[in-house]
């Protein structure tokens, strides 16, 4: 319980820190582009909307601590301002409409990469110096050294443009209405294969090497020798004895890697014009839509922190030593 509370404290501080970064950035920014932005939109904004922008970006004359309190209040009540690039839709609605696609893309890719990567790591460590162990680590390190978005570009070019196996970009065929029919779900899956596949390809190496290196340590433990001496089947020793104990670092790495997957999904979305948050973020950056940029940053941070917290709870279940401490 103490462990969980301490972690929760961490996440709250982290969220507070990113809130503060968000609060400070526009106020420290030289040149006052927000003022210019407001000037450009003078005719289209209502007085109440202008008032809200002033709150968000500190263009009013109130003391800074009062602005800070107001800002935190706004964030927790979901008032993140109005998107200037998709005027007059509130930032919260823009994000809400796109978040699902990002979760679908990132979640699928993460799940496949974790399961596959760990399995490969287990097998490679078990047959030290075997084909898998010699061939895969260098190969995956090589693939992993490509930037996410470059692998995505190559995959898009090869599989969608040249070979025409998969559709070019988007999350579903334009013009079809989203529904839960088998046809639409099939369409979504066909659009998902290449973007998710690129994220898997790039992140697989990290999982495999991590698992392999812990497995090598575990495989040398005395209880493995003992299990062998008892005459247990090799498969049982591998999964139930060695791999099970080597899993813990992977669980921790899972929490850490969610942030990376978010980043990878963002860039992949940009390349594939996949209608998730990352694609939205790019559009926000290009049209200097500061409220949307900040809203997306906060949403992603919150999502990553919540995911990490859930993993901590899982960790406590998995590792009894944490509970005792």
């Amino acid at each position, binding site marked *: 319980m103490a462990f969980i509370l301490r972690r929760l404290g*961490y996440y709250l501080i982290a969220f507070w820190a*990113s809130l503060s970064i968000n609060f400070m950035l526009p106020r420290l920014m030289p040149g006052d582009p927000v003022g210019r932005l407001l000037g450009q939109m003078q005719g289209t904004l209502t007085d109440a909307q202008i008032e809200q922008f002033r709150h968000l970006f500190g263009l009013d004359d109130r003391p800074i601590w009062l602005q800070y309190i107001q800002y935190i209040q706004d964030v927790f009540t979901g008032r993140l301002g109005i998107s200037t690039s998709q005027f007059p839709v509130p930032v919260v609605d823009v994000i809400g409409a796109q978040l699902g696609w990002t979760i679908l893309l990132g979640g699928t890719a993460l799940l496949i990469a974790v399961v596959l990567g760990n399995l490969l790591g287990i097998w490679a460590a078990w047959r030290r110096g075997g084909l898998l162990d010699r061939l895969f680590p260098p190969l995956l390190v090589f693939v992993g050294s490509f930037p996410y978005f470059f692998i995505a570009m190559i995959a898009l070019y090869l599989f969608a*443009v040249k070979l025409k196996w998969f559709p070019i970009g988007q999350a579903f065929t334009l013009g079809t209405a989203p529904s839960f029919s088998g046809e639409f779900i099939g369409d979504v899956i066909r659009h998902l294969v290449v973007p998710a596949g690129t994220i898997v390809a790039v992140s697989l190496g990290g999982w495999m090497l991590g698992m392999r290196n812990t497995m090598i340590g575990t495989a040398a433990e005395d209880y493995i020798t003992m299990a062998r001496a008892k005459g247990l089947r090799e498969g049982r020793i591998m999964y139930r004895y060695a791999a099970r104990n080597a899993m813990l670092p992977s669980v921790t790495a899972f929490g850490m890697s969610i942030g990376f997957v978010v980043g990878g999904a963002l860039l992949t979305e*940009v390349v594939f014009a996949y209608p998730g948050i990352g694609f939205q973020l790019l559009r926000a950056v290009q049209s200097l839509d500061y409220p949307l940029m900040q809203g997306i940053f906060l949403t992603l941070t919150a999502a990553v922190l919540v995911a990490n917290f859930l993993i901590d709870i899982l960790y406590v279940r998995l590792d009894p030593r944490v509970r005792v401490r």
Partner: protein
Amino acid sequence: MSVQNSGSSMLTTTATSQPGAPVNAPRHRNRLALRLLRDRRALTGLVILVIFVVVALAAPLISPGNPRSSVAAGSESPSFAHLLGTTSKGEDVLALLIWGSRSSLGIGFTVGALATLVGLLIGLTSAYFGRAIDDFLSVVTNIFLLIPGLPLLIILAAFLPPGPGTIVVVLVITGWAGSARVVRAQALSLRGKDYIDAAVVTGERPLTIMLREMLPNMASIVMSTFLACVIFGIGAQAGLEFLGLGDVSAVSWGTNLFWATNEGSLIRGTWWTFVPSGAAIALIAFSLALINYAVDEVTNPRLAGRAKRKDRRR
């Protein structure tokens, strides 16, 4: 074992210390360098790296003139006149690649060095002083590790004025935490060693102990952290510029990719405009990863000595 040896003998050398390098730290590093040179993978990595650095330094000689000037018709596929073809604006792709290596390598190594330096300072301070200072610095480090990197990078880069300085600052802000954590863990185990306590008792100043006694014994960790930071720097710079958050008029591998996508190379199938820059980033990262991998195996006996371990298992 060698780490401990050099540590305890260092106590005798630094007890009568004068300003200057510790006596046996260079020997330790030389040994590491020598063993790396004997490793086939590390050698491959070093050769690739050296080629890139030489090309970057000699860019004005190899490819004179402004790489942004149109030298041919647009979108020509690779030919003898233009080995890697031309972009849709008629720029020579090879020239862009060569000149781009300057910015990419320059920023990558600057970011790597600065992020490692910050990580070292925080990690060593944290481990040496312990208690409240350690608690505070660990919280700060963990927070930077928790906040997703790319979104933070993007909003920082979007709000600050564009330019190479901003990119370096932003990448160091988001990149130092990982190295601080690794350094702290290693320094913490050194902090418990007797020779550090001995140094404290003899009245060495904290900074001297950290830099003279602890740092030389972490050479391999520092080295692999630095390499990882450089990989991060090059990749993240390219990512930012690909999104259009850098100075798009400058020539770098990231901006090459940005222009390639913006000019629709993917859809039009002009692969030669985006493959070279991406491959260059990957090749550099790969070479650094190879060196890193070899440093790991050379310094960590558990991962090395494959033949010996296999015998024991059979």
